[in-house]
């Protein structure tokens, strides 16, 4: 009993040490761009005297749940993902309207949206240049036609998320009217899909618009000619209470959102994924180069 009480005292005194310190937790998903975004945000916030805890490497829905449950205070989220996956709404083609809609709907969840960047990390279907030319496939419509004419010939590499999300493969198949067939969908870790494509083990793979491997492996992305994929602009979603407590967070993350766009993001992803630099180094150097933090 005595041990329990002393333990409780120690624990409570521990937490009281932190009083007066500015603490914030930043969440992130399980791919390079998200590691970079959360790392850069952490650097910026630390520069302003915050004590930052990062919770990385989570699936979209998991980190979103953590945000709703206040385990994560702030994260970079994509407008399309929020609208379709979390809020179960139909996609909207206009980025600004998507953002406004998401902001509106999330207000009742006590989550505030701000600082939409020009990073558009939408999904894309990729093929190798040779294969695409050989089969004369340039758009998703072409792909659908080919598959309808030659069922069970092409295979696709996808992670479990895209393969099962309504704004992912099932939605694409419905919109374009074709069906890969369950046995032709190879589900694997998202980091491997492009490698599988590059090695010729599959014919099509899911990719992100800002994916560095597209350039590195000489892949082509198929044109989304029926505009199925909505804009996936990266924006900051933050717990309302936390924002009220630290209003300066809006301005701090805004500096980052203002500068970033898809091209920069692809370059940074390239430095990590292809050149093999560490996320921290790439994030830090970019911030220093752009005069956002002191060396």
């Amino acid at each position: 009993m005595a041990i329990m009480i002393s333990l409780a005292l120690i624990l409570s005194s521990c937490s009281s040490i932190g009083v007066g310190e500015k603490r914030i937790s930043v969440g992130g998903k399980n791919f390079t761009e998200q590691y970079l975004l959360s790392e850069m945000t952490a650097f910026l916030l630390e520069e302003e005297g915050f004590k930052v805890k990062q919770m990385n490497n989570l699936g979209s829905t998991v980190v979103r749940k953590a945000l709703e449950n206040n385990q994560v205070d702030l994260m970079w989220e994509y407008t399309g993902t929020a609208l379709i996956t979390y809020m179960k709404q139909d996609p909207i083609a206009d980025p600004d309207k998507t953002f406004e809609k998401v902001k509106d709907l999330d207000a009742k969840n006590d989550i505030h949206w701000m600082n939409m960047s020009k990073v558009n990390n939408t999904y894309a279907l990729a093929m190798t240049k040779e294969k695409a030319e050989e089969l004369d496939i340039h758009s998703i419509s072409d792909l659908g036609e080919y598959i309808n004419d030659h069922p069970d010939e092409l295979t696709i590499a996808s992670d479990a998320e895209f393969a099962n999300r309504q704004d992912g493969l099932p939605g694409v198949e419905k919109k374009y009217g074709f069906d890969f067939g369950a046995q032709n969908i190879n589900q694997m870790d998202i980091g491997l899909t492009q490698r599988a494509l590059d090695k010729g083990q599959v014919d099509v793979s899911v990719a992100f618009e800002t994916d560095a491997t597209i350039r590195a492996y000489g892949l082509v992305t198929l044109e989304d000619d029926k505009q199925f994929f909505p804009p996936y602009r990266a924006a900051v979603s933050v717990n309302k209470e936390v924002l009220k407590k630290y209003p300066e967070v809006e301005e701090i993350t805004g500096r980052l959102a203002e500068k970033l766009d898809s091209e920069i993001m692809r370059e940074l992803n390239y430095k990590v994924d292809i050149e093999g630099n560490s996320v921290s180094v790439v994030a830090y150097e970019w911030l220093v180069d752009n005069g956002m933090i002191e060396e």
Partner: protein
Amino acid sequence: MKRKKLTSLVVRCILYALVALFLFWSIKNHYYDYIFTNSSTFLLLLRQHLSLVLVSSLLAIVIAVPMGILITRKSFRRAEWVVSNTVNFGQTIPSLAVLALMISILGIGFKTAVFALFIYSLLPIYRNTVAGIDSIDENLLDAAKGMGMTRVQILFKMELPNAAYSILAGIRTAIVLNIGTAALAYVVGGGGLGVWIFTGIQLFDNGYLISGAIPVTLLAVGVDFGLRLLENKLISKGIRATVES
């Protein structure tokens, strides 16, 4: 003694009640719906899972049992530490790392997953084979020699039947572990029910999670039970009596 029995009965009852409660809860929440609405995918994943386990376990048995027998022969004894350490090494690398390492050699998909599972299954089978043969009473072997049995006869009539219990136990352990580990095959695109487990994690969808995890669990329990029956069939009564006593 009576008290011990009572405790075990109570514990068992509580466990069964918990399982029943879980089943009730998961069925009530429609967590198994995907198995029925998506049955073609489910059967595909189940088939992939079974072939992963079957191929890798068979490979492991075919390699590890003869290896264990060979290493217990007098002339090969010296090499035991090399083989044992190599096999041990296969088990000590985390299975995820084996998967990742093999990608660069075997590529992505079924082959890589089978290879990793195979490496993972070697140790329990090999170890138990060696231990089983080593545990045989020297006097028994002397008696066999005295009766004029050849080395081959001794192996098949004395050593193997006496070590069978241990060998089969090793195989059982390996296969049951294998069934659970095979869920990791998703990571390298090897298919199997792990796909639904990971879908469940990524989409935060308990339906996928449970539709994937429970069949894997049932598979492991069922196979364990089946192998135990087989064990009872294969091992002669006399030996079973000595082992169990």
